[in-house]
């Protein structure tokens, strides 16, 4: 739809006066250009303002519609592709490398703050090359990580953890050739960095299900067990989430704590961009918003995957209550009114479901 037509539609839906139009229109247009038009799950030809107008028209005209509009203008957290890529690119120099430097300093008995000394040391070189970067989903964007940090070689990055076992011998050979100068050397990886784009509940990483550990971390722990890939006496595993809620971090940290004895090496979890409680939308805080969430709800979204968490999906998977949209998809932990797009309801940022991820 042409911009001007979409705008006209929106103005009609919202019943704006010319003064209000003058105020809102340039800003919306700017925000659409800057971020929202970049949503990658729109149908071809669809753009933000048209989607907004259609979405708003589901709500009662007047203050309910106004409240829905304010949800978008004042509470929505939209993480655009350039923003996410920035998190990916800076994860190495600002999160991972400082940790590697610290361990290399310890190796050489140099106070860790003498980075000038440490960075030139053999120990750091070993620590650096001895790091294996593994993506936990497509969102881990290991391609961006490598492109922006040329120091990381292709032979220490796996876009997908499912290849861990099969790639293991080759990875080890390359590592030994570089560090020991010999394929038959003894070196093994000393750091495993697990990368993922987003977590709201942390449940898809580690959880107990029928007294069994489930989730990506559990799977990986199983995969690496018995592989000769890592130096288990000297292994550090960093789980790094580009965007994570404090709820997810707490959950994963707690579960890791319980598992500490069973896992090889030391495990930690961290984030680049955090989401705190102040962003979360909870039932009972704003009755008008609760009403919108109830009214524009299709029980069809409450499928077996949704049922793995608390609640029926209105406030997102596991009642996470997030107002978050990632440019490549809206997480199911976000309020259903933002993403649910069914025969009955229209989503503002329609979500494409792939159940393996985003629990």
């Amino acid at each position, binding site marked *: 739809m042409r911009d*001007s*037509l979409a705008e*006209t539609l929106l*103005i009609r839906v919202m019943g704006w006066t*010319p*003064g209000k*139009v*003058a105020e809102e*229109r*340039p800003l919306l247009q700017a925000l659409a250009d800057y971020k929202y038009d970049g949503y990658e799950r729109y149908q071809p030809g669809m753009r933000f303002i048209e989607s907004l107008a259609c979405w708003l028209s589901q709500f009662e005209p007047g203050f309910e519609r106004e409240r829905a509009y304010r949800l978008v203008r004042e509470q929505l957290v939209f993480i655009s592709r350039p923003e996410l890529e920035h998190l990916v690119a800076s994860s190495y120099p600002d999160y991972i490398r400082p940790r590697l430097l610290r361990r290399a300093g310890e190796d050489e008995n140099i106070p860790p703050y003498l980075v000038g000394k440490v960075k030139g040391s053999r120990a750091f070189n070993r620590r650096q090359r001895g790091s294996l970067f593994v993506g936990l989903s497509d969102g881990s964007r290991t391609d961006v990580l490598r492109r922006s940090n040329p120091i990381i070689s292709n032979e220490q990055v796996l876009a997908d953890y499912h290849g861990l076992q099969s790639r293991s011998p080759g990875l080890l050979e390359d590592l030994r050739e570089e560090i020991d100068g010999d394929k038959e050397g003894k070196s093994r990886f000393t750091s495993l960095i697990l990368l993922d784009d987003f977590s709201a509940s942390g449940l898809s990483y580690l959880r107990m299900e029928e007294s069994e550990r489930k989730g990506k971390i559990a799977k990986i722990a199983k995969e690496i067990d018995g592989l000769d890939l890592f130096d288990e006496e000297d292994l550090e595993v960093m789980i790094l989430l580009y965007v994570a809620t404090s709820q997810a971090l707490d959950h994963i940290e707690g579960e890791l704590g319980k598992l500490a004895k069973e896992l090889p090496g030391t495990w930690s979890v961290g984030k680049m961009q955090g989401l705190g409680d102040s962003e979360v939308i909870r039932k009972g805080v704003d009755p008008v918003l609760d009403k919108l969430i109830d009214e524009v709800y299709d029980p069809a979204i409450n499928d077996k995957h949704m049922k793995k968490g608390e609640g029926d999906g209105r406030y997102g998977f596991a009642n996470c209550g997030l107002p978050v949209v990632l440019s490549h998809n809206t997480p199911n932990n976000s309020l259903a009114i933002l993403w649910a797009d069914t025969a009955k309801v229209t989503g503002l940022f329609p979500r494409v479901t792939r159940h393996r991820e985003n629990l």
Partner: protein
Amino acid sequence: MLPEDELWDRRVIVRSSPGGGKTTLLRVFTPGPLRIVHRNGGSDDQTGDLYRGLLRRGALDREGPTIAAALIPLAGKYSPLDQLDSVDEGTRLRAFLALLNARILLGALRAQLHMAALRFPDDLERIGIRGGLEASQRDRITGLEVLASATDLESRVARVLSSLRAPDEEMLPAIDELLCLNELGKDQILIDGKPVRSRCVIMLDDVHRLSASQRRLLMEILLAERTPTPVWIAERREALTPDELLATGAKEDRDVVTIDIERYWRGARRKAFRRLVGGVANRRMSLSINTPGSSFAAMLDDSDEEGWAEVLPKVEASMIESSEGRKEFASWVEAQLSKEATARERAVGMRSLQIRVARELTAQQLTMDVFVRDEQALASLEERRREASNIREAAELFLSREYELPFYFGESRLAELSSANVDQFLDLGGDLFEELAGISGAALLSGNVTLSARRQEEILQRAVRAMWKQLGSSVEGAARVRALLDGIGNYCAERSYLPNAPYAPSVTGVALRRSEAEQLQEAAAAGTTGWRSQLARTIGTLLAHNLITVQASEAKGQHWAVFYLNRAWCVRFGLALGYGGWQPSDVEELWAWAEGNTVRTQGRLEGT
């Protein structure tokens, strides 16, 4: 604005407040605009007038431009030199001249290349200066050499200025005069070996941004002797000291043309200014709206008949009431009622009448003389058209306040509100443009793009509030500046809304006796810290920023310096926009206002 004779043989000084358009004026004479105007010729709708004006002033002839102005910005580029405390002043000033000299040369060559449709710096090797520079012994140097020498000189200065060590004086260039003004004379510049046809003119912009000693030296050099290269000087009024600003009569100098842009527009040329900004507005609109043929003026809807029709009966009732049942006014009322007119015209007519009645009644009370004006007297009043129209405007203003009707709307009032400053016009009109652009998207629904009078007023009021807010962060001594403006404005409002509107349409200025203004000047010149000198500085700031303007006036056998509010403040204080209504004041009162003290001795002031 510019004289037609011998313009290029005189020094020209252009002054205005910020946004007054001095740089725009200078830019007309630079190669780009001159070439376009010449190419379009005399028959072009948009630039035909300009073409003829430039032709008369010898800036171009039938064959093409005859001058090539180099616009040399001085803002911020030289004053840092004056911060090198450890270097003595003489050395600093010689470095200033050397830098300026190099940049003028370079600027002139750049302008000539531009005029010849050549590129800077790629085509510099094709241009040269005959006679060479005095510094070099050769008879001709090329543009590339000029560039190389300027680059070297500038980078040396840049290194000294940003050195974290003590400045190295040896690195600073030094000359004692502006040699370039002799080197750029007629036939001196060659392109591909042939003299160029257009004469070099140097236009120094933002001279007020030099340090005080640099400006003094430059002015001395430029005004002392004639050189073959004409030089124009453009600066803000703030470069003038408060005592220069307060002076209302300037000394005449045959060799120097001084132009004060806003003063020029404010005089008898208000209609011309309105045309100017009208044109600006239309071009601005055509950039953002696809509604060919419609003008900005037409988009500003100025009829609000419904609103007026609603209040008309109340206005009539109020009129009849205030005539205190006197028969003698009945015929006036009859005369008004029978006229065929819009509700707005009738309401305004009625309210004007009410003001006149109030005047009559006041006059009667004062003179204790019962005299009744008949129809003929009314007619003689009507002959005094100016007064009648002033009263009508006051009436409309009063109505707008009494019935909350819009007053500040329509293109002509917007032009008045700009106080002869193009930037202010664009600032105030900016939100109107935005909103029109905004609703042009929605026009698919309604079909026409107009703004109601009420909405226009809302937007203008918001713009004026923003201007006021900005004032707090953009001028020196903002608190005092605002307080003094508030003092003046509130007093004007108080004197304007008397029932008989004695100073119709509004009081919009206050005046000081010339002798008092002179005392202020003396205090300012002495540079003391006393209150008079502080007041003079505050008034100086107000004048420099076009927040008020000053005009000489004679009344009651006295000479006065009248300070009128910038018209935008009329919105703030609810005043009409015409000039002419002012009230006498004195320095003590102005100072009290500036200090935020608004208590006044009642009845001390009598109207003029």
